[in-house]
């Protein structure tokens, strides 16, 4: 038996309180396509960053072709035969394809840059691996798919024997995905080991030879692709057991708060949301299940108004708000707990007080709508309110002036939730509200959401955790490839049924979902 191309043993890495990798083992066999699967935050990117020398592990060992390696930078990894194509490309827009490919390792003739040799190299690699591209084209004129090919060529030019592709299909059109998969297959057949980082089950089943699944920083499954099923993969990815809140009971739905009709979102030519219709009523939690990247986030953005819709309407409390600004929608009655709590949900360099005041700074008691105080904020009122919310939501902090960025993930999330819940908006959109927070905070957050519902609030809950949806939602809609493909009531929802719908196996009829 030949040595594996790479072998990672017991890799652990933590960032402050968050354990990103916990004793991860990964064996990459030579000439295979190995998928590394997991939801956002499962630890895939951390693991790949460690393998590529961008991060150093707290514990564990890396063997490349049987030899122990300690990478202090990506340059060490490149020298050891690794290549990585990042989600965000690192290309020089103003230079040609050939110059980008050979940059830093240029062919020379008489001391000068040998442009012809560089172009010939790109053509030769292109023919060998099926990566068709004009070596003289400027990168600025290329499509996203073509830029990705340049990145792959860069790695191949440096004789990479292990090629890491980080979420390579996220930015591609379906046609480009097919081409990419052909390239991956050809590279593997030529002896290159390809690591495919992804959360898309159909990609794994289509192109990989082996799968390693990560969840919460640990390996939760390792399969040969031929011997596994999508249901098994979904379970390994999302099967985290969230302790259910004891007997939450059903909500008592009232008037319709949110009505989405035939909403469609197209982003850079790719359809993200296709003709989605559903309603959320007061006193009801509607869950949206789905493997991440199936349009849930774009749907939320369309409802909130941060992303334009190409078709359909969004109604809030009976008013058509499809063309309204985000601020007007929020004033009408939307609160949102965003998926990206550090980038979107909070201003991490600002204090808890300032974060809690954001969005509420124009109205009493912090601001004033009229009179001499209009346009000014009361720092004293903001701090008093912050102290009250810190106590009420059990935020563990040194004080209300501490920056949100220095809080742990769970406490930072409590700040966001306190801000969004404390003003009693009729509609709450909660996107992955418990992702990356510890068990204690999960229970507290779930309790808050149920209280909100009990107070007559309507909640749209987007989650990748089936158990979370089962614990909280009155109805569960399943989203796949931008469309709603199934609807379950609390009574007939099961992990297996939802998982099957998420994997596209049981495209149930929508008895209620398409109803206006």
């Amino acid at each position, binding site marked *: 038996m030949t040595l594996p191309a790479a072998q990672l043993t017991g890799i652990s890495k933590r960032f402050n309180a968050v354990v990103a990798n916990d004793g991860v083992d990964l064996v990459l066999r030579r000439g295979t396509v190995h998928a590394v699967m997991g939801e*956002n*935050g499962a630890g895939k*990117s*951390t693991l790949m*960053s460690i393998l590529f020398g*961008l991060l150093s592990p707290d514990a564990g060992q890396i063997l490349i072709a049987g030899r122990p390696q300690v990478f202090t930078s*990506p*340059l060490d990894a*490149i020298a050891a035969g690794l290549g990585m194509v*990042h*989600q*965000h*490309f*690192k*290309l*020089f*827009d*103003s*230079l040609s394809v050939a*110059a980008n490919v050979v*940059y*830093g*390792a*240029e062919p*020379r003739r008489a*001391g*000068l*840059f040998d*442009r012809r040799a560089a172009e010939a190299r790109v053509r030769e690699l292109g023919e060998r691996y099926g990566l068709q591209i004009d070596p003289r084209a400027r990168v600025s004129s290329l499509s996203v798919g073509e830029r990705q090919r340049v990145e792959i060529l*860069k790695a191949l030019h440096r004789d990479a024997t292990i090629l890491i592709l980080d979420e390579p299909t996220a930015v591609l059109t379906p046609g480009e995905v097919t081409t990419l998969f052909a390239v991956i297959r050809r590279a593997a057949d030529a002896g290159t080991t390809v690591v495919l980082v992804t959360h898309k089950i159909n990609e794994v089943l289509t192109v990989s030879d082996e799968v390693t699944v990560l969840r919460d920083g640990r390996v939760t499954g390792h399969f040969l692709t031929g011997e596994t099923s999508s249901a098994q993969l979904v379970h390994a990815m999302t099967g985290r057991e969230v302790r259910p809140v004891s007997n939450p009971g059903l909500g008592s739905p009232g008037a319709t708060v949110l009505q989405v009709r035939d909403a469609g979102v197209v982003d850079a030519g790719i359809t993200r949301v296709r003709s989605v219709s559903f309603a959320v009523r007061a006193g009801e939690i509607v869950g949206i299940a789905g493997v991440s990247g199936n349009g849930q986030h774009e749907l939320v953005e369309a409802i909130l108004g941060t992303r334009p819709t190409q078709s359909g309407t969004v109604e809030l409390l009976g008013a058509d708000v499809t063309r309204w600004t985000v601020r007007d929608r929020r004033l009408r009655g939307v609160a949102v707990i965003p998926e990206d709590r550090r980038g979107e949900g909070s201003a991490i360099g600002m204090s808890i007080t300032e974060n809690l005041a954001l969005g509420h700074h124009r109205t009493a008691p912090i601001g004033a709508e009229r009179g001499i105080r209009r346009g000014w904020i009361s720092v004293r009122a903001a701090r008093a309110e912050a102290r009250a919310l810190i106590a009420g939501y059990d935020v563990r902090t040194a004080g209300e002036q501490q920056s949100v960025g220095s809080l742990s993930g769970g406490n930072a999330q409590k700040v966001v939730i306190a801000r969004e819940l404390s003003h009693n908006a009729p509609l709450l959109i909660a996107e992955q509200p418990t992702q990356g927070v510890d068990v204690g905070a999960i229970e507290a957050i779930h309790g808050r959401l149920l209280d909100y519902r009990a107070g007559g609030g309507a909640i749209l809950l987007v989650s990748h955790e089936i158990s979370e949806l089962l614990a909280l939602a009155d109805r569960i809609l399943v989203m796949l490839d931008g469309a709603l493909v199934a609807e379950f009531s609390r009574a007939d929802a099961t992990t297996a049924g939802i998982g099957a719908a998420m994997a596209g196996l049981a495209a149930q009829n929508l008895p209620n979902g398409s109803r206006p």
Partner: protein
Amino acid sequence: MHVFELSFVAAVLLAATPVLFASLAGAISAQVGVFNIALEGQMLWGAFAAVAASYYTGNPWAGVLAAVVSTAVFALVLAVGAARWKADPIVIAIGSNLFALGITGFLMGVLFDVSGSFSPRGLVGLPKMQWLHDVPVLGAVFGGQTALVPLALVLIVVVGLWLLFTPHGLRLRGVGEHPEAAASLGINVPGYQFWVTIAAGALCGFAGAQLSLGNVTVFTENMTAGRGWIAVAAVMLVAGRPLWLPLACLGFGAAEALGFRLQGVGAPQQLTDAAPYLITILVLVLTRIRIPRRTKASLTA
């Protein structure tokens, strides 16, 4: 009025040469991602150093050498600050410019006991290329010029070709466009930025020497009079294509030379003095300049 004769071409080149050197300095800095607005101050320092060294040694070439070396040293502040310590080059450059203005005025008083301007009897300017006089065309254009004038043109072409056709030129261009990408491919980004900023200082030394020992033979307070800023404008105008610099700089030279000629036929001096600056603003507005935006690629979880 015979405005467009060969002597006019010579006048244009003369006026343009200091700006040519300085704009080449600015252009290579821009190529490595350092927005260099210290050209004005560095050129002024170079002009002073050239006059001082020429006065002490009696040799104008010693003046040029002193200007080039000492201005490269002067540029250390910007090179160390911007490349090593990642400080804001704009702030350092503003400091450099103010410092150059102050120190040259101060040293004129301390060393030569004069203020305002310094042109002692023993001060020797750079020789003109008289030996070209009998050559047709070239004689008329370059015969009355110093050797630095053709040197500026040659340097621009050599540097432009070096950037385009050598591995190091390619790497240098990549450093400015996307430093993270260059670093990810093993390029020493701060190293490139450091040495290019020093080289830019040396070029500003040439610019200053030509100004104080070539165009005239005198040092006056703030004698650069905005030429370094015109060079900055020229850099932005050509937006990363150094081979176009001569065109931009000669446009400025033409405006200045034309101004002198128009004075000769009675145009008000205030207007003709302002002509180069007005033309610079006009061209910048017309071409709708924009500073190249750099995208920050970052690793996402």
